[in-house]
């Protein structure tokens, strides 16, 4: 291995340094070595499939060790530790990317074909026994439940953040801030149980299920997110704008409505969209309070209502006679869900970028 310095004459300034490119050569070398080892193992018949991930993983481990040893011998202990830390940090990043890549890849591969099949977005699961059937009831349910959750939580969240930034002083503001923090940490399933307990108390029906209950549960999860993000955005509005407005004799409420909110509306919209993206994928509370059904139900206040996350869950967990049909639908539902969330995220970022207030001159 090329660990000594090259060139006709040893140079005092570059001696004791690894030559350029040595790191990459060690990396490729250790990958190649482990790849061939695994190839031999496979030819020996120990494993059936070629274990690419294992080869890459062990190759990376070998790379870290070899690089550490070489650097230790050539450059000394401190440089060796530095290089080890660098390679470990990069390794951590790649490890974090692996599940993302694997997840997106498998969802696309397994879900795309079924999702574009004509039945998926035109049929419900009512009276479906074979491979067709779709998620239209779940999509309708998700859109209705989430929309109502947003209608409940956006005004409350926005007004609370206005209170915290513009009016709130003293004990009440501190208590609200603390409680919003606490609410952020409520597990989603507890929110579902709360909505269930609430509606059982109100209606007296122990088997109560409805889409509106799901909206209430989702609002519990959504309000703190809206408050937090709107609060951050309102704080960004420069005080000079408020003072200029007061100086012109504008009352405080009109200042907030006409000056502060329009200035921060882009950021607030972004925050709201991100919070919608967060709750639209919630499964546990909807499983408890909205229940599951195979039919389309437009009425939020009556009967069970299917939602997309619950659809994915039930297609997987209650597999019928022909399992692959159900698993295919589950993947397709998962892909639909991811696409909706990604679109919301993307839209939020675009709005944030285009309508960001121009604070500079």
């Amino acid at each position: 291995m090329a660990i000594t310095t090259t060139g006709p004459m040893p140079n005092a300034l570059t001696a004791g340094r690894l030559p350029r490119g040595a790191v990459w050569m060690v990396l490729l070398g250790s990958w190649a070595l482990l790849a061939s080892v695994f190839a031999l193992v496979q030819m020996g018949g120990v494993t059936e499939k070629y274990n690419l991930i294992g080869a890459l993983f062990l190759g990376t481990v070998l790379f870290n060790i070899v690089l550490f040893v070489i650097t230790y011998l050539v450059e000394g202990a401190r440089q060796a530790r530095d290089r080890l830390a660098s390679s470990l940090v990069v390794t951590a990043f790649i490890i974090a990317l692996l599940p993302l890549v694997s997840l997106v890849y498998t969802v696309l591969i397994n879900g795309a074909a079924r999702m574009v099949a004509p039945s998926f977005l035109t049929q419900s699961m009512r009276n479906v026994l074979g491979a067709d059937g779709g998620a239209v009831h779940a999509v309708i349910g998700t859109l209705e439940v989430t929309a109502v959750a947003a209608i409940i939580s956006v005004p409350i969240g926005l007004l609370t953040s206005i209170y915290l930034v513009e009016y709130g002083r003293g004990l009440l503001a501190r208590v609200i801030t603390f409680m919003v923090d606490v609410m952020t940490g409520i597990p989603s399933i507890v929110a579902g149980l709360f909505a269930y307990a609430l509606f059982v108390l109100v209606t007296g029906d122990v088997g109560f299920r409805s889409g509106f209950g799901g909206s209430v549960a989702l609002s519990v999860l959504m309000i703190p997110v809206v408050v937090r993000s709107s609060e951050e955005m309102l704080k960004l509005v420069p005080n000079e704008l408020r003072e200029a407005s007061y100086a012109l004799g504008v009352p405080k409420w009109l200042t907030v409505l006409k000056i502060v909110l329009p200035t921060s509306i882009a950021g607030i919209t972004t925050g709201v969209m991100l919070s919608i993206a967060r709750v639209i994928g919630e499964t546990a509370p909807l499983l408890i309070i909205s229940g599951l059904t195979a039919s389309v139900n437009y009425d939020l206040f009556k009967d069970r209502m299917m939602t997309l996350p619950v659809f994915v869950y039930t297609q997987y967990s209650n597999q019928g006679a022909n399992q692959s049909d159900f698993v295919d639908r589950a993947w397709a539902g998962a892909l639909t869900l991811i696409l909706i969330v990604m679109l919301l995220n993307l839209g939020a970022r675009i709005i944030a970028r285009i309508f960001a207030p121009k604070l500079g001159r």
Partner: protein
Amino acid sequence: MARQSTGVITARVRLGDRVFSGSTVIAGSVILGVLAAVALFLIVQSIPAITAKEGTLPNSAPNFWAYVWPLVFGTVWSAALALIISIPISIGVALFISHYAPRRLAQGLGYVIDLLAAVPSVVFGLWGVLVLAREIQPFFVFLNTNFGWIPLFGGVVSGTGKTVLTVAIVLAVMVLPIMTAVCREIFLQTPQLHEEAALALGATRWEMIRMAVLPFARPGIISASMLGLGRALGETLAVAMVLSPARVINFFLLTPQNPNTIAANIALQFPEASGIGINTLIASGLVLFVITFIVNAIARVAVNRRKAFSGAN
């Protein structure tokens, strides 16, 4: 009406002001009311289960605490395992984005990690059980045959890969974005002068990070871990789909007999529960609420202390 006598000028109180500020106060109070209602309703619905006589509870548990204890253990155990996996990785990723990656790339890489946070938990569950569990099962067999003498890897190895270790990996992936985001923010707040001073004294990059960045960021790392812990404790569907549960308390990582978590147990049992079974599940939800409340409160205190501290320098 300005009071001339004292010389203090107060603005005329307008109807619009009254209405507007009043409505913001009401909105804020609604939040307090909701939180109180959550606690109240859960307690009301839990009382029948907590006071239930022997023989009426599900799983023929003698009392509620005997019912919930294995679930509490499973919840804490799987979340702790997830943290053990995700803390080093999230610190590494955050360091990579804040101190190692080229400046132009850094923000884009941050977005990529944030994408993980956008994936719904049910999709993680589906991926965990249909992809990860199957792929990782041969590795479990390997661990079991070669390292079975370590108690953690002992026992009869699972044939499906649906074990607590798989769950911990899925949970680790799910809490990674929030932990990375918090760590990254804290690392970026390190005073630049400290970093430059360390480098000027001849420190390598790693020595600079160890001497300047990590000591500064320690409270932030702790609070990030607690936030991640709070998420992992309350995660429901991914656990419910991936784990093959049993009513046991053990520390084996690779067996098909795994302690279940509170949240997953609720999700699995609730659709079929009735009578006192529902009350029992709600009471276990209350226990989960209390646990996550404590964890999050600790995290908040750590974050707030940190804030007060950084304001001074």
